């Protein structure tokens, strides 16, 4: 949803009900993380996993007291505007280069926390080299990898992570693995590298999964504090708009199709290192 | 004073450092200097070379195609550079190695049996200092007393014990001029 629609909506109800008149203490059933998430409507489509991922990560940053210690890198893709929502210092990187940018930030300020937030097009296609080499050097950064198996911002093209047979605008007859390659399991690919400390695959399509994903993000920042090396939290997610599904259907797709191919859980922990 | 020289030979004969020693010596004497290793087509044909320019005034082009002095350590260098010596200039060549000597009559030709003398000094590596000795004697591009100081800067400290041997070779080279 664009901001304009929200503004339209606001003006329609102006005079009758105001934001201030609803947002009262006694009416609160939900609250964004205080201060680390900016109080503004997000541009993400209804039901998109990005909003949830943003929220839980910013909760973790707030809970760990890292707002002033952390610098984020936004990618190119749907989350290009992550810096409009996350209330921490951020840099917006060129397509695929977040891990290079993150490497440099960490190297010049090793005492700070650094994260990148990247989608599958950004991280697993155009940015594969930067990702692999940051991992291999054991850069002490956190990579949050949102894998929804499709290009969101450019409207539904095939991603390296698209499932076999998956219909996208550039694989209209379904992804033919004999011609278009196989879905790429980045987490499994990176895990064996000695520089990698922690790789886990999570999802945010159900409340319990949201809790687990949050826990994983917490762990990853703790490992960064302990200078364990490269950490990646992959979040298997949905894309209702481009999958041409309702939010609920898209979450079912995640459950029934994505997760069987991209199984959830820790792939590598510092203990395995 | 302007001396535009080229040192040429096979790779490994010390031609690059020969030019560098001259450049250091010039700098120590507060002259303008420039050292340029071989470039472009000059690199072909089995020769390595370095141009060294020593001047009292600002050096214009480090790229030159005519030389005041050519120091040649192998036959291809004589063939390539003899014609590029300015009239009245010098060619100094290793007469042990170079069997077909330069023939021009409008330049000074110095035959120095550098390799033979180096063998006598029991270290073939001092060939370049022998030839440099002849070159500096012939051109007065720098004072001979400056050369050991230049060697101190060019050679890594662990080789400083070889400076006396190098200076001995340098003097042998000088003895072949005039």
């Amino acid at each position: 949803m664009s901001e304009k629609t929200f503004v339209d909506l606001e003006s329609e109800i102006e005079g009758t009900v105001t934001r201030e008149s609803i947002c009262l203490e006694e009416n609160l059933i939900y609250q964004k993380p205080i201060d680390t998430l900016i109080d503004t409507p997000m541009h993400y489509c209804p039901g998109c996993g990005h909003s949830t991922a943003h929220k839980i990560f910013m909760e973790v940053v707030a809970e760990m007291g890292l707002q002033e210690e952390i610098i984020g890198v936004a990618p190119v893709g749907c989350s290009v505007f992550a810096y409009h929502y996350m209330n921490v210092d951020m840099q917006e990187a060129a397509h695929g280069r977040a891990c290079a940018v993150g490497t440099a930030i960490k190297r010049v300020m090793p005492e700070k926390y650094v994260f990148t937030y990247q989608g599958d097009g950004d991280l697993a296609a155009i940015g594969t080299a930067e990702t692999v080499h940051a991992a291999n050097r054991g850069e002490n950064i956190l990579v949050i990898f949102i894998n929804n198996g499709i290009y969101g911002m450019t409207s539904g093209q095939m991603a390296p992570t698209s499932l076999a047979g998956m219909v996208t605008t550039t694989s209209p007859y379904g992804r033919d693995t004999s011609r278009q390659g196989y879905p790429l399991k980045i987490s499994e690919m990176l895990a064996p590298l000695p520089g990698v400390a922690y790789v886990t695959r999570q999802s945010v399509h159900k409340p319990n999964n949201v809790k687990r994903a949050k826990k994983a993000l917490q762990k990853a920042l703790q490992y960064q504090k302990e200078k364990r090396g490269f950490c990646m939290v992959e979040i298997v997610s949905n894309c209702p708009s481009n999958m041409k599904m309702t939010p609920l259907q898209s979450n079912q797709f995640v459950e029934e199709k994505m997760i069987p191919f991209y199984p959830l859980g820790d792939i590598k922990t510092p203990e395995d290192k | 004073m302007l001396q535009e020289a080229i040192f040429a030979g096979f790779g490994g004969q010390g031609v690059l450092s020969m030019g560098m020693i001259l450049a250091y010596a010039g700098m120590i004497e507060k002259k303008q200097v420039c050292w340029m290793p071989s470039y472009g087509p000059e690199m072909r044909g089995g020769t390595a070379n370095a141009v060294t320019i020593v001047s009292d005034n600002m050096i214009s082009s480090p790229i030159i195609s005519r030389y005041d002095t050519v120091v040649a350590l192998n036959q291809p260098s004589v063939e390539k550079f003899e014609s590029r010596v300015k009239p009245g200039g010098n060619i100094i060549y290793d007469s042990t190695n170079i069997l077909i000597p330069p023939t021009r009559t409008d330049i000074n030709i110095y035959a120095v049996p550098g390799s033979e003398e180096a063998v006598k000094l029991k270290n073939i590596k001092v060939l370049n200092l022998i030839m440099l000795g002849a070159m500096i004697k012939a051109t007065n591009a720098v004072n001979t007393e400056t050369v050991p100081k230049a060697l101190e800067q060019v050679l890594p400290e662990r080789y400083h014990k070889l400076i006396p041997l190098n200076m001995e070779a340098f003097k042998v080279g000088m003895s072949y001029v005039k």
Partner: protein
Amino acid sequence: MGDLKLMKGNEALAEAMIRAGCDAYFGYPITPQSEVLEYLARESEQRTGMLAFQAESEVAAINMIYGAAGCGRRVMTTSSSPGMSLMQEGLSYIASAELPCLLANVVRGGPGLGTIQPSQADYFQSVKGGGHGDYKLIVLAPSTVQEMVDFVKLGFELAEKYRNPAMILTDGAVGQMMEPVELFDQMPRRTVFPEWATTGKKPGQERRYITSLHIQSEKMEEINHRLQAKYKKMEENEVRYVEMNTEDADYIFTGFGLGARICMKAMQMARENGFKVGLVRPITLFPFPTKVYNDLGARVKGILDVEMNAGQMVEDVRLSVNGQTKVEFYGRMGGVIPSPEEIYEHFIKTFIEGGKK
């Protein structure tokens, strides 16, 4: 004069970087400039704590420059032509996000993988933008090893003054040759960083973010206006060039970097033969010294522009002269360096003999 040191151009560049209080270097090996990273790897961390980092590619290196410059650090990278082509995308982002940084392109002959021999064929790429969008780099063209040192300091100063990437545009010959240099004293590395730098959100203050994305056209146009105003200011205040023997000159030789030095010798030959030739050497290729060419164009019989390319800067010379006098070009390409004799002969052929006909 302080102590002189005989140094290779590339090593002088690296030494100057350390002394300029540079915080980090990110680069990728490519001939003919690999000595820069090698030198820094030996020296920088021990001496000042400056990071010397070998990236996995030039693409990564320039984005690391973006990241570190975004943290307000004094950062530099160097490369040679094919590598600099890979950096163009990142440079466009850096220019748009207005991050100060310094680059050096030790140019080799192209196009393509080309040759490792010296060339000036990246003038257009450096001066006219190179990457996408309307942006400019501050471009400095050293012609001596001393200027390789001096322009590191100047390059950082200008880059920081204007929050703009600056580039030292040199070539393989200047990178490989040795000349005496006087080094400036070690400058301290910064401990206080610019207000806009992303160094962690400060309590009670707005977060900082570095971006080149402004999705609304009106906003993006506003950013463009701001950039153009900045470039105009550079044109007003930062033009640098050298004139020699122009007072009585009938003809002008011109070129940049190494080309200008070869021209200088050709000029001396012309003077010895009784021709009143002067020399103009731009130091800043952007901002370009338009006025000096325009003024000279009004009173000289001709200008000979010499470059190690197919004729690139000559377009700017012609624009500056604006038809007031004849502007001829002489160049060699693909790593071949013109000799002073060739230039002199071309001058005689074009302006003296050609002029008589």
